Protein backbone atom coordinates (compact mmCIF):
# COMPACT_ATOMS: atom_id res chain seq x y z
CA UNK A 1 0.00 0.00 0.00
CA UNK A 2 2.88 2.37 0.77
CA UNK A 3 4.35 1.71 -2.68
CA UNK A 4 0.95 2.35 -4.24
CA UNK A 5 0.51 5.69 -2.51
CA UNK A 6 4.05 6.78 -3.44
CA UNK A 7 3.37 5.81 -7.04
CA UNK A 8 0.08 7.73 -7.00
CA UNK A 9 2.02 10.77 -5.81
CA UNK A 10 4.61 10.38 -8.59
CA UNK A 11 1.93 9.78 -11.21
CA UNK A 12 -0.10 12.87 -10.32
CA UNK A 13 2.99 15.00 -9.76
CA UNK A 14 4.29 14.20 -13.25
CA UNK A 15 0.85 14.48 -14.85
CA UNK A 16 0.57 17.95 -13.32
CA UNK A 17 3.72 18.89 -15.22
CA UNK A 18 2.06 17.71 -18.45
CA UNK A 19 -0.93 20.02 -18.01
CA UNK A 20 1.38 22.83 -16.83
CA UNK A 21 0.31 23.27 -13.24
CA UNK A 22 2.45 26.13 -11.83
CA UNK A 23 5.57 24.93 -10.03
CA UNK A 24 4.46 26.19 -6.62
CA UNK A 25 1.36 23.95 -6.66
CA UNK A 26 2.97 20.69 -7.85
CA UNK A 27 3.41 19.30 -4.33
CA UNK A 28 -0.21 20.05 -3.46
CA UNK A 29 -1.66 18.36 -6.54
CA UNK A 30 0.60 15.34 -6.03
CA UNK A 31 -0.42 15.21 -2.37
CA UNK A 32 -4.14 15.41 -3.19
CA UNK A 33 -3.72 12.60 -5.74
CA UNK A 34 -1.82 10.39 -3.30
CA UNK A 35 -4.24 10.94 -0.39
CA UNK A 36 -7.18 10.39 -2.73
CA UNK A 37 -5.72 7.06 -3.80
CA UNK A 38 -5.11 6.13 -0.14
CA UNK A 39 -8.79 6.81 0.64
CA UNK A 40 -9.77 4.75 -2.42
CA UNK A 41 -7.65 1.79 -1.27
CA UNK A 42 -8.91 1.98 2.34
CA UNK A 43 -12.59 2.09 1.35
CA UNK A 44 -12.16 -0.65 -1.24
CA UNK A 45 -10.52 -2.97 1.27
CA UNK A 46 -13.79 -2.86 3.27
CA UNK A 47 -16.41 -2.88 0.52
CA UNK A 48 -17.12 -5.06 -2.49
CA UNK A 49 -17.96 -2.36 -4.99
CA UNK A 50 -15.32 -0.29 -6.75
CA UNK A 51 -17.92 2.45 -7.14
CA UNK A 52 -18.08 3.07 -3.40
CA UNK A 53 -14.34 3.61 -3.13
CA UNK A 54 -14.37 5.85 -6.19
CA UNK A 55 -17.21 7.93 -4.79
CA UNK A 56 -15.68 8.47 -1.35
CA UNK A 57 -12.26 9.20 -2.84
CA UNK A 58 -13.77 11.63 -5.37
CA UNK A 59 -15.62 13.48 -2.59
CA UNK A 60 -12.38 13.65 -0.59
CA UNK A 61 -10.41 14.97 -3.59
CA UNK A 62 -13.11 17.55 -4.37
CA UNK A 63 -13.10 18.85 -0.79
CA UNK A 64 -9.30 18.92 -0.65
CA UNK A 65 -9.21 20.84 -3.96
CA UNK A 66 -11.70 23.42 -2.69
CA UNK A 67 -9.71 23.87 0.52
CA UNK A 68 -6.44 24.31 -1.40
CA UNK A 69 -8.10 26.68 -3.86
CA UNK A 70 -9.47 28.94 -1.11
CA UNK A 71 -6.23 28.80 0.81
CA UNK A 72 -3.87 29.46 -2.10
CA UNK A 73 -6.30 31.77 -3.97
CA UNK A 74 -6.28 29.85 -7.23
CA UNK A 75 -9.04 28.30 -9.37
CA UNK A 76 -10.36 24.97 -8.06
CA UNK A 77 -9.71 23.10 -11.31
CA UNK A 78 -5.96 23.69 -10.98
CA UNK A 79 -6.05 21.13 -8.15
CA UNK A 80 -9.04 19.12 -9.18
CA UNK A 81 -8.21 18.06 -12.75
CA UNK A 82 -4.86 16.45 -11.81
CA UNK A 83 -6.16 15.14 -8.47
CA UNK A 84 -9.10 13.23 -9.91
CA UNK A 85 -7.05 11.51 -12.63
CA UNK A 86 -6.30 8.36 -10.60
CA UNK A 87 -10.05 7.67 -10.41
CA UNK A 88 -10.90 8.26 -14.08
CA UNK A 89 -11.86 4.84 -15.47
CA UNK A 90 -9.02 4.41 -17.97
CA UNK A 91 -8.78 0.72 -17.08
CA UNK A 92 -12.46 0.25 -17.86
CA UNK A 93 -12.05 1.86 -21.26
CA UNK A 94 -9.18 -0.45 -22.06
CA UNK A 95 -11.03 -3.56 -20.91
CA UNK A 96 -14.03 -2.68 -23.11
CA UNK A 97 -11.82 -2.71 -26.20
CA UNK A 98 -9.75 -5.68 -25.09
CA UNK A 99 -12.70 -8.01 -24.58
CA UNK A 100 -14.42 -6.74 -27.70
CA UNK A 101 -11.39 -7.80 -29.70
CA UNK A 102 -11.17 -11.09 -27.79
CA UNK A 103 -14.75 -11.69 -28.98
CA UNK A 104 -16.25 -11.76 -25.48
CA UNK A 105 -19.07 -9.28 -25.92
CA UNK A 106 -20.66 -10.04 -22.53
CA UNK A 107 -17.55 -9.20 -20.55
CA UNK A 108 -17.07 -6.13 -22.70
CA UNK A 109 -20.61 -4.94 -21.95
CA UNK A 110 -20.04 -5.49 -18.22
CA UNK A 111 -17.02 -3.23 -18.35
CA UNK A 112 -18.96 -0.69 -20.40
CA UNK A 113 -21.61 -0.44 -17.71
CA UNK A 114 -18.98 -0.29 -14.97
CA UNK A 115 -17.09 2.48 -16.76
CA UNK A 116 -20.26 4.55 -17.13
CA UNK A 117 -21.02 3.95 -13.45
CA UNK A 118 -17.59 5.14 -12.37
CA UNK A 119 -17.81 8.25 -14.55
CA UNK A 120 -21.28 8.93 -13.16
CA UNK A 121 -20.12 8.48 -9.59
CA UNK A 122 -17.27 10.95 -10.12
CA UNK A 123 -19.78 13.40 -11.59
CA UNK A 124 -22.07 12.89 -8.59
CA UNK A 125 -19.21 13.58 -6.17
CA UNK A 126 -18.34 16.83 -7.97
CA UNK A 127 -22.02 17.85 -7.98
CA UNK A 128 -22.34 17.20 -4.28
CA UNK A 129 -19.22 19.00 -3.10
CA UNK A 130 -19.62 21.94 -5.49
CA UNK A 131 -23.24 22.48 -4.48
CA UNK A 132 -22.44 22.38 -0.76
CA UNK A 133 -19.47 24.74 -1.13
CA UNK A 134 -21.58 27.08 -3.26
CA UNK A 135 -24.35 27.17 -0.67
CA UNK A 136 -21.97 27.81 2.22
CA UNK A 137 -20.18 30.68 0.54
CA UNK A 138 -23.34 32.30 -0.81
CA UNK A 139 -24.78 32.65 2.68
CA UNK A 140 -21.78 34.57 3.98
Amino acid sequence: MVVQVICAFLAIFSFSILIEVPKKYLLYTGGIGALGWLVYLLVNSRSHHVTMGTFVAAVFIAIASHVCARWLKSPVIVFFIPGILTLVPGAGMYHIVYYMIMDQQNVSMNYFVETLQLAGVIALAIFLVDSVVYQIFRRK
Partner: protein
Amino acid sequence: MDYKLLLDTAVLAGKIMLENGAEIYRVEDTIYHILKKSELKVAQAYVVSTGIMVTLDDPAIDSLTVIRRIRERRTNLNFIDKVNSISRNFCADKITLKEAFHDLKHMEPNYYNNWLQILATAVCTGSFSVLFGGGWEEAGVAFVVGILVALVTLGGRRINLNGFLTNAVCSVVIAWGTILFSNIPGVEININPVIIGSIMPLVPGAAITNAVRDMLQGDFNASGAKILEAFVIAAAIAAGVGLGFFMTGGLR
Protein backbone atom coordinates in the same frame (compact mmCIF):
# COMPACT_ATOMS: atom_id res chain seq x y z
CA MET B 1 -11.05 55.47 -17.65
CA ASP B 2 -10.23 54.05 -21.09
CA TYR B 3 -13.30 51.86 -21.69
CA LYS B 4 -11.96 50.47 -24.93
CA LEU B 5 -8.80 49.17 -23.24
CA LEU B 6 -10.84 47.86 -20.32
CA LEU B 7 -13.04 45.90 -22.70
CA ASP B 8 -10.01 44.58 -24.59
CA THR B 9 -8.38 43.50 -21.33
CA ALA B 10 -11.52 41.72 -20.17
CA VAL B 11 -11.97 39.91 -23.49
CA LEU B 12 -8.29 38.95 -23.67
CA ALA B 13 -8.45 37.51 -20.15
CA GLY B 14 -11.57 35.56 -21.08
CA LYS B 15 -10.07 34.31 -24.32
CA ILE B 16 -6.92 33.00 -22.63
CA MET B 17 -8.95 31.24 -19.93
CA LEU B 18 -11.37 29.67 -22.40
CA GLU B 19 -8.59 28.46 -24.70
CA ASN B 20 -6.80 26.79 -21.84
CA GLY B 21 -9.69 24.83 -20.42
CA ALA B 22 -11.42 26.96 -17.79
CA GLU B 23 -15.10 26.44 -17.02
CA ILE B 24 -17.59 28.76 -18.75
CA TYR B 25 -18.88 30.37 -15.57
CA ARG B 26 -15.37 31.18 -14.44
CA VAL B 27 -14.66 32.91 -17.76
CA GLU B 28 -17.89 34.93 -17.52
CA ASP B 29 -17.16 35.74 -13.89
CA THR B 30 -13.64 36.99 -14.64
CA ILE B 31 -14.83 39.17 -17.55
CA TYR B 32 -17.67 40.53 -15.45
CA HIS B 33 -15.42 41.42 -12.52
CA ILE B 34 -12.99 43.28 -14.77
CA LEU B 35 -15.84 45.15 -16.51
CA LYS B 36 -17.38 46.12 -13.19
CA LYS B 37 -14.35 48.34 -12.54
CA SER B 38 -15.78 50.75 -15.13
CA GLU B 39 -18.83 51.35 -12.92
CA LEU B 40 -20.99 51.63 -16.04
CA LYS B 41 -24.62 50.56 -15.92
CA VAL B 42 -24.56 47.59 -18.26
CA ALA B 43 -21.74 45.07 -18.36
CA GLN B 44 -22.64 41.74 -19.89
CA ALA B 45 -20.60 38.72 -20.88
CA TYR B 46 -21.99 35.81 -22.85
CA VAL B 47 -19.57 32.93 -23.28
CA VAL B 48 -20.01 29.66 -25.14
CA SER B 49 -17.32 27.07 -25.66
CA THR B 50 -16.46 28.45 -29.13
CA GLY B 51 -16.70 32.18 -28.58
CA ILE B 52 -17.04 35.23 -26.34
CA MET B 53 -19.49 38.14 -26.62
CA VAL B 54 -19.06 41.11 -24.32
CA THR B 55 -20.85 44.43 -24.19
CA LEU B 56 -20.41 47.57 -22.14
CA ASP B 57 -23.09 50.28 -22.12
CA ASP B 58 -24.16 53.40 -20.27
CA PRO B 59 -26.33 56.45 -21.02
CA ALA B 60 -23.15 58.53 -20.97
CA ILE B 61 -21.27 56.63 -23.72
CA ASP B 62 -21.87 54.82 -26.98
CA SER B 63 -22.19 51.14 -26.30
CA LEU B 64 -19.14 48.96 -26.93
CA THR B 65 -19.40 45.36 -28.03
CA VAL B 66 -16.69 42.81 -28.77
CA ILE B 67 -17.00 39.33 -30.21
CA ARG B 68 -14.15 36.84 -30.18
CA ARG B 69 -14.10 33.43 -31.86
CA ILE B 70 -12.16 30.73 -30.01
CA ARG B 71 -10.47 28.14 -32.18
CA GLU B 72 -7.70 26.59 -30.13
CA ARG B 73 -8.39 24.43 -27.13
CA ARG B 74 -6.02 22.68 -24.75
CA THR B 75 -5.47 22.18 -21.04
CA ASN B 76 -2.93 24.54 -19.55
CA LEU B 77 -3.61 25.26 -15.90
CA ASN B 78 -0.66 27.64 -15.60
CA PHE B 79 -2.38 30.20 -17.83
CA ILE B 80 -5.66 29.88 -15.96
CA ASP B 81 -3.91 30.46 -12.65
CA LYS B 82 -1.97 33.46 -14.01
CA VAL B 83 -5.03 35.16 -15.55
CA ASN B 84 -6.87 34.54 -12.30
CA SER B 85 -4.21 36.29 -10.23
CA ILE B 86 -3.86 39.16 -12.72
CA SER B 87 -7.60 39.83 -12.63
CA ARG B 88 -7.63 39.56 -8.83
CA ASN B 89 -4.79 42.07 -8.58
CA PHE B 90 -6.49 44.41 -11.02
CA CYS B 91 -9.81 44.27 -9.22
CA ALA B 92 -8.07 44.95 -5.90
CA ASP B 93 -6.38 48.00 -7.48
CA LYS B 94 -2.92 46.51 -6.97
CA ILE B 95 -2.05 47.01 -10.66
CA THR B 96 -3.26 49.52 -13.23
CA LEU B 97 -5.29 48.71 -16.32
CA LYS B 98 -2.27 49.16 -18.58
CA GLU B 99 -0.16 46.82 -16.47
CA ALA B 100 -2.93 44.21 -16.45
CA PHE B 101 -3.23 44.36 -20.24
CA HIS B 102 0.55 44.16 -20.64
CA ASP B 103 0.79 41.18 -18.28
CA LEU B 104 -1.95 39.34 -20.17
CA LYS B 105 -0.29 40.02 -23.51
CA HIS B 106 3.13 38.82 -22.38
CA MET B 107 2.59 35.56 -20.56
CA GLU B 108 5.26 32.95 -21.06
CA PRO B 109 3.91 30.34 -23.46
CA ASN B 110 5.64 27.22 -22.17
CA TYR B 111 6.33 26.68 -18.51
CA TYR B 112 8.09 23.32 -18.65
CA ASN B 113 10.50 22.46 -21.49
CA ASN B 114 10.17 19.46 -23.80
CA TRP B 115 12.72 17.27 -21.99
CA LEU B 116 10.89 17.69 -18.73
CA GLN B 117 7.58 16.87 -20.45
CA ILE B 118 9.03 13.66 -21.89
CA LEU B 119 10.42 12.65 -18.50
CA ALA B 120 7.12 13.55 -16.81
CA THR B 121 5.09 11.44 -19.26
CA ALA B 122 7.40 8.48 -18.68
CA VAL B 123 7.23 8.77 -14.88
CA CYS B 124 3.47 9.19 -15.10
CA THR B 125 2.87 6.07 -17.21
CA GLY B 126 5.37 4.07 -15.14
CA SER B 127 3.73 4.93 -11.82
CA PHE B 128 0.22 4.40 -13.14
CA SER B 129 1.11 0.90 -14.30
CA VAL B 130 2.03 0.11 -10.67
CA LEU B 131 -1.31 1.52 -9.49
CA PHE B 132 -3.08 -0.87 -11.84
CA GLY B 133 -1.34 -3.94 -10.52
CA GLY B 134 2.00 -3.94 -12.31
CA GLY B 135 5.35 -4.86 -10.78
CA TRP B 136 8.75 -3.26 -11.37
CA GLU B 137 9.18 -4.91 -14.78
CA GLU B 138 5.82 -3.59 -15.96
CA ALA B 139 6.68 -0.14 -14.62
CA GLY B 140 9.95 -0.22 -16.56
CA VAL B 141 8.24 -1.11 -19.82
CA ALA B 142 5.53 1.50 -19.22
CA PHE B 143 8.29 4.06 -18.60
CA VAL B 144 9.78 3.34 -22.05
CA VAL B 145 6.33 3.34 -23.68
CA GLY B 146 5.67 6.68 -21.96
CA ILE B 147 8.71 8.16 -23.69
CA LEU B 148 7.27 7.02 -27.04
CA VAL B 149 3.89 8.57 -26.16
CA ALA B 150 5.56 11.88 -25.28
CA LEU B 151 7.49 11.88 -28.56
CA VAL B 152 4.32 11.23 -30.57
CA THR B 153 2.45 13.98 -28.67
CA LEU B 154 5.23 16.52 -29.21
CA GLY B 155 5.54 15.52 -32.88
CA GLY B 156 1.78 15.84 -33.33
CA ARG B 157 1.85 19.29 -31.78
CA ARG B 158 4.65 20.34 -34.14
CA ILE B 159 2.76 19.35 -37.31
CA ASN B 160 -0.56 20.60 -35.85
CA LEU B 161 -2.23 17.22 -35.81
CA ASN B 162 -5.77 17.39 -34.42
CA GLY B 163 -6.58 15.98 -31.01
CA PHE B 164 -8.45 12.93 -32.23
CA LEU B 165 -5.59 11.73 -34.43
CA THR B 166 -2.93 12.46 -31.80
CA ASN B 167 -4.80 10.36 -29.24
CA ALA B 168 -5.41 7.56 -31.73
CA VAL B 169 -1.79 7.42 -32.89
CA CYS B 170 -0.56 7.53 -29.27
CA SER B 171 -2.80 4.57 -28.41
CA VAL B 172 -1.61 2.60 -31.44
CA VAL B 173 1.97 3.20 -30.33
CA ILE B 174 1.10 2.14 -26.77
CA ALA B 175 -0.52 -1.17 -27.75
CA TRP B 176 2.05 -1.91 -30.42
CA GLY B 177 5.06 -0.99 -28.27
CA THR B 178 3.84 -2.95 -25.27
CA ILE B 179 3.24 -6.13 -27.27
CA LEU B 180 6.60 -5.71 -28.97
CA PHE B 181 8.29 -5.56 -25.57
CA SER B 182 6.37 -8.55 -24.26
CA ASN B 183 7.68 -10.58 -27.22
CA ILE B 184 11.33 -9.99 -26.35
CA PRO B 185 12.69 -13.27 -24.96
CA GLY B 186 13.39 -13.06 -21.24
CA VAL B 187 10.89 -10.25 -20.64
CA GLU B 188 7.98 -11.74 -18.72
CA ILE B 189 5.34 -9.05 -18.38
CA ASN B 190 1.61 -8.77 -17.99
CA ILE B 191 0.56 -6.39 -20.77
CA ASN B 192 -2.66 -5.13 -19.11
CA PRO B 193 -1.15 -2.87 -16.42
CA VAL B 194 1.36 -1.51 -18.92
CA ILE B 195 -1.29 -0.52 -21.47
CA ILE B 196 -3.73 0.85 -18.87
CA GLY B 197 -0.98 2.86 -17.19
CA SER B 198 0.17 4.24 -20.51
CA ILE B 199 -3.27 5.43 -21.65
CA MET B 200 -3.88 7.29 -18.38
CA PRO B 201 -2.23 10.56 -19.51
CA LEU B 202 -4.60 10.53 -22.52
CA VAL B 203 -7.92 9.80 -20.77
CA PRO B 204 -10.51 12.62 -20.80
CA GLY B 205 -10.42 13.46 -17.09
CA ALA B 206 -10.39 17.22 -17.68
CA ALA B 207 -13.34 17.01 -20.08
CA ILE B 208 -15.46 14.99 -17.64
CA THR B 209 -14.63 17.35 -14.77
CA ASN B 210 -15.47 20.50 -16.72
CA ALA B 211 -18.62 18.95 -18.18
CA VAL B 212 -20.00 18.35 -14.71
CA ARG B 213 -18.97 21.73 -13.34
CA ASP B 214 -20.49 23.56 -16.31
CA MET B 215 -23.70 21.56 -15.97
CA LEU B 216 -23.96 22.54 -12.33
CA GLN B 217 -23.82 26.22 -13.30
CA GLY B 218 -26.54 25.76 -15.93
CA ASP B 219 -24.24 26.05 -18.95
CA PHE B 220 -25.77 23.07 -20.71
CA ASN B 221 -24.39 24.05 -24.10
CA ALA B 222 -20.80 23.87 -22.97
CA SER B 223 -21.48 20.87 -20.78
CA GLY B 224 -22.97 18.86 -23.64
CA ALA B 225 -20.02 19.77 -25.83
CA LYS B 226 -17.57 18.63 -23.14
CA ILE B 227 -19.38 15.31 -22.67
CA LEU B 228 -19.16 14.73 -26.42
CA GLU B 229 -15.48 15.63 -26.28
CA ALA B 230 -14.93 13.04 -23.55
CA PHE B 231 -16.65 10.38 -25.66
CA VAL B 232 -14.64 11.31 -28.75
CA ILE B 233 -11.35 11.08 -26.82
CA ALA B 234 -12.39 7.74 -25.36
CA ALA B 235 -13.33 6.49 -28.82
CA ALA B 236 -9.98 7.62 -30.22
CA ILE B 237 -8.10 5.76 -27.49
CA ALA B 238 -10.23 2.65 -27.94
CA ALA B 239 -9.82 2.66 -31.72
CA GLY B 240 -6.08 3.20 -31.36
CA VAL B 241 -5.53 0.39 -28.89
CA GLY B 242 -7.67 -1.93 -31.00
CA LEU B 243 -5.72 -1.06 -34.14
CA GLY B 244 -2.44 -1.61 -32.30
CA PHE B 245 -3.57 -5.10 -31.29
CA PHE B 246 -4.48 -5.97 -34.87
CA MET B 247 -1.19 -4.63 -36.22
CA THR B 248 0.75 -7.00 -33.99
CA GLY B 249 -1.29 -9.96 -35.19
CA GLY B 250 -3.97 -9.89 -32.53
CA LEU B 251 -3.56 -11.43 -29.13
CA ARG B 252 -2.06 -14.80 -28.73
